[in-house]
């Protein structure tokens, strides 16, 4: 695969970057890390209760890889932006999280899980892939590892999307509803056309494609997959992006619900935390 970005100009640290590019980079890395943290949580939850044993094993593995990716992204955030990884997980208001909002609450059924796997997870990989060969050199090795591991997440999501869609009318209708929710939240997460932070990353060749390009490519492929399966997904791009916050990638000031954050942080085990 050819590099996603040209590497004519390269950066070893954020000190070499323009301020808007540095801010945009932190925002996108943290947003991907937050989304992967929530994906890891939900995949872990779905280690129990999926339709077949192999999917349980797969979910356990997918959870592990997502949490591993969080560690990789947090390491970059720590080294280059001074973020404390423990604080990023344990000591932020819910409203400060920048995950795809579809993951804010429990995934109540298997079609919701499939929406997270097939639409949210694969979109994260598209965004990371757009930074493959990035002009910001410290990203490169981590990105290659993550993208390589994400291949199996994509196979799993694609396979289950197709399988559930073909089970029957009721299953297909529920999959369509859950997928629509996932899609709407991903579109919001990717942000408005002309987002200056995203544009600064493209201009600096840290990203090879804008989020709008990524969104359009994702939509084209999703519609091409869903249509023949009888799923009529609507492309609902907001007309009004008023209030959209590039740091949280949403127009509202909510976030993961308290129950999820409690379990994700090990709320009942704080006295056992190692310093």
């Amino acid at each position: 695969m050819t590099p996603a970005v040209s590497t004519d100009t390269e950066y070893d640290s954020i000190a070499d970057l323009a301020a808007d590019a540095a801010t945009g980079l932190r925002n996108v890395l943290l947003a991907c890390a937050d989304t992967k943290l929530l994906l890891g949580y939900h995949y872990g939850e779905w280690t129990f209760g999926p339709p077949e044993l192999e999917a349980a094993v797969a979910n356990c593995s997918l959870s592990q890889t997502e949490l591993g990716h969080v560690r990789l992204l947090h390491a970059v955030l720590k080294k280059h932006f001074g973020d404390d990884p423990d604080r990023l997980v344990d000591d932020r208001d819910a409203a400060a999280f920048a995950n795809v909002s579809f993951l804010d609450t429990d995934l109540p059924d298997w079609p919701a899980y499939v929406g997270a796997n097939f639409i949210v997870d694969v979109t994260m990989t598209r965004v990371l892939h757009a930074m493959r060969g990035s002009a910001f050199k410290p990203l490169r090795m981590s990105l290659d590892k993550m993208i390589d591991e994400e291949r199996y997440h994509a196979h799993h999501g694609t396979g289950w999307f197709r399988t559930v869609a073909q089970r029957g009318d009721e299953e297909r209708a529920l999959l369509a509803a859950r997928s629509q929710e996932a899609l709407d939240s991903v579109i919001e997460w990717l942000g408005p056309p002309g987002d200056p932070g995203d544009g600064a990353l493209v201009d600096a060749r840290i990203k090879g494609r804008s989020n709008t390009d990524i969104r359009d490519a994702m939509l084209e492929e999703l519609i091409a997959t869903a249509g023949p399966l009888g799923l009529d997904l609507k492309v609902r791009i907001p007309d009004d992006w008023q209030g959209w916050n590039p740091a949280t990638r949403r127009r509202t000031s909510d976030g993961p619900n308290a129950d999820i954050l409690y379990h994700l942080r090990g709320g009942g085990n704080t006295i056992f935390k190692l310093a």
Partner: protein
Amino acid sequence: MPYGEVYEVFARKTHDEPLRHVGSVNAADDDLAKAYAWTVYDEENWVEMCVVPRGAVIPITSHGAVPLWGN
């Protein structure tokens, strides 16, 4: 209840060793077979792994049967 198809899983740890049969998975399609094979049989750092639908395997010997004259 099993559905889909049985896929046989083959893998190797180094490029200079032959592919060997490491197990099988039950999956609805090729995508799920790839995901399941990779996540179920993850005990090694495989350099190559592939899956083959069992239905695509053409038996030459009578499968699993002991000949009348013994092994």
